[in-house]
């Protein structure tokens, strides 16, 4: 989570006036966790703008752990990552920068993914995405860039299965019309 928090601060550091940086985490319907959002309003001069930006970075860093605690308390014991991604698209339809942090493998939407057996089938990633409900593969705003972080890092998948897992997410992104990249971190 530290990497994600650092990324949030880095985004705030570079966001333009009028911009928004939001954090959206896995959520249960019983949870009541407001997304963490930071905006940068216009300022009367550069000094004020710089001060506002620095203050926003501190606010985000301070609120981040509490937000994570909130959503984690409502953890449903498995990943509904595609549902979360679809919710994100609905909540932030103009977002063109996506950073997705997920290092697990369990997924409610992809039964059989666990243990990595399916991931050794080269045809599986495309089939898996094709079988997702249309509501879980929304069309994203043009020029959206999705960066996947830590994919599969919390699993014991072998190299072939890990490549299959990554392929699922890159195919999903491609289907939404987004540009997809896997982070080096």
């Amino acid at each position, binding site marked *: *989570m530290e990497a*994600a928090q650092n*990324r*949030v601060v*880095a*985004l705030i550091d*570079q*966001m*333009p006036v009028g*911009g*928004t*940086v*939001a*954090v*959206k*985490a*896995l959520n249960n319907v019983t949870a009541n966790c407001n997304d963490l959002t930071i905006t940068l309003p216009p300022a009367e001069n550069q000094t004020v703008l710089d001060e506002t930006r620095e203050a926003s970075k501190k606010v985000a860093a301070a609120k981040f752990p509490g937000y*994570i605690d909130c*959503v*984690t308390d409502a*953890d*449903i*014991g*498995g*990943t509904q*990552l595609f549902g*979360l*991604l679809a919710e*994100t698209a609905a*909540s*932030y339809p*103009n*977002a*063109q*920068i*996506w*950073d*997705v*942090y*997920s*290092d*697990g*493998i*369990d*997924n*409610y939407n992809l*039964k059989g993914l*666990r243990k990595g057996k399916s991931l050794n089938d080269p045809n599986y990633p495309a089939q898996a995405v094709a079988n997702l409900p249309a509501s879980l593969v929304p069309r994203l705003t043009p*020029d959206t*860039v999705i*960066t996947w*972080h*830590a994919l599969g890092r*919390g*699993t014991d998948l072998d190299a072939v299965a890990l490549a299959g897992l990554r392929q699922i997410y890159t195919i999903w992104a491609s289907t939404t019309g987004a540009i997809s*990249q*896997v*982070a*080096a*971190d």
Partner: protein
Amino acid sequence: MNTTTRTQASRRTTAAVVLLTVLALVLSGCGNSEPPADGAGFTPPGGSPGSPGSPAQVAVVVLDTSASVTTTPT
């Protein structure tokens, strides 16, 4: 230093330069189709504020907080 020694030293130097060049290219991401990304920036690729393509205004960080449940069957 005789001719043979100089030639060997020259070859070693050349090899070292080639190795460093290749290393620099790899580190800079050249020849790698997958960007060495930490994440996209607000400014369009290759551009700066005012260049073609307006900068992004909204960024989202999406977290799968149940990543630790890899041992929990779903």
